[in-house]
């Protein structure tokens, strides 16, 4: 068995093959970035799209966590040109009142994630986002595959 590293809400974790990074997502977005040559990868689990002055935790927000994740991967020896991303999560509450902007937080997280990855020039190879299901994610650093378990069904994305 490979080591399973749990990535909590508002956390970034990086490791190397054959570790597995695991997280559970509701409206949060999980960003899995992989260097297919060096077999180094990392995951960010972001709660909200953009950072606020009052909260000093950069791992919580897409706009600060994603650059931080990439920086950490490069520091551990990954090469920018080998990196690609898979993103998942961003589910919405099934029904929410007209006055509940928070109901759209999943969509806003997905949007901001795309923007940040584009800014950094990292291609998104897989998007398994939106809907109303919770998701359990396993990101395998031996080959960069991502397993998504939602509503009792599993899907595996191999593209790296």
């Amino acid at each position: 068995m490979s080591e399973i590293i749990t990535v909590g809400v508002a956390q970034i974790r990086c490791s190397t093959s054959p570790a597995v990074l695991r997280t559970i997502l509701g409206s949060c977005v999980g960003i899995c970035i992989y260097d297919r040559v060096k077999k180094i990868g990392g995951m960010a689990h972001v709660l909200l799209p953009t950072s606020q002055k009052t909260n000093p935790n950069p791992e919580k927000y897409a706009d600060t966590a994603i650059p931080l994740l990439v920086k950490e991967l490069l520091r551990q020896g990954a090469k920018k040109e080998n990196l690609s991303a898979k993103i998942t999560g961003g589910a919405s509450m099934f029904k929410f009142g007209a006055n509940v902007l928070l109901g759209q937080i999943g969509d806003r997280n997905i949007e901001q994630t795309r923007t940040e990855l584009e800014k950094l020039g990292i291609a998104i190879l897989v998007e398994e986002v939106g809907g109303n299901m919770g998701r359990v994610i396993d990101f395998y650093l031996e080959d960069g595959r991502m397993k998504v378990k939602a509503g009792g069904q599993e899907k595996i994305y191999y593209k790296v």
Partner: protein
Amino acid sequence: MDQNIKKQIDAIITNIDRLPPLPEVAGKVINMVNDPDVSFKQVAQEISKNQAMTANILKLCNSAFFSKGKEITSIDRAIVTLGLKEVKDIVFLVAAKPLMVKPVIGYDLAQGDLWTQGLAVATMSRDIAISKKKKELADVVFTGGIIHNVGKVVIALFVQQAFRDILALVQAQNIAFHQAEKEIMGYNHQEIGEKILEKWNFPQVLRSIVRYYQEPGNAPAEHSLAVSIVHIANAICLMGGIGIGSDGLFHEIRDEAIKKVALSQQELEGLFSRVPEILKQIRDIQ
């Protein structure tokens, strides 16, 4: 509707022995603290009778979550230092944990998931009550938050059998998961939860929280605020992925609850933003 499942659930809820038990002391203490004729000495005596629980209760009294700094070595001291209501919450935590910490298969919840979600909802509910200057509700929504989805423990086996049908109905009729539970199985987990709390002889407000946390608009008016608070905290914790299971986010956040608690958009987002901090806070009482 699956008549076979409905019959099996009927058989469980009409036979009190088949509903999960709770150490007697918890029900007693919860009712004693609401009784003005009961002295704190009597409460302390009642708790101290149960030696096995007392050790765990004292451990929680000294956890970072509850501690006021001074080391507590007896139930008497605990009541003096932390207050009667806080000690009641702790007794309940110790009593309910063995039941709530188990895996809940039909909902795809691993060991500890339901318990963690209960603690997170309880803590967030308490924070909401305090921030809205409803301190008198703080301990009620804390207890209610821990226990709000206790019915899942009983109904999970049937959900496992009926899961595909429930989910198909959610999507075909655009109804929330708990509504589809009722359509398919004749009952939803809130109704089962209410039966469990009846068996435990818990106060009415806690029964209302368990019964109506998914439909706060139908709660009795006098419990509406407490129910609405737990409704909102539950939705936000699930969105944060805490205790999210096979029913996913097939739930609702109701406008009437937001209005009742008087939360602004900013406050709602602020609560969501606090999910990681709440998880950190409850770590030492898990």
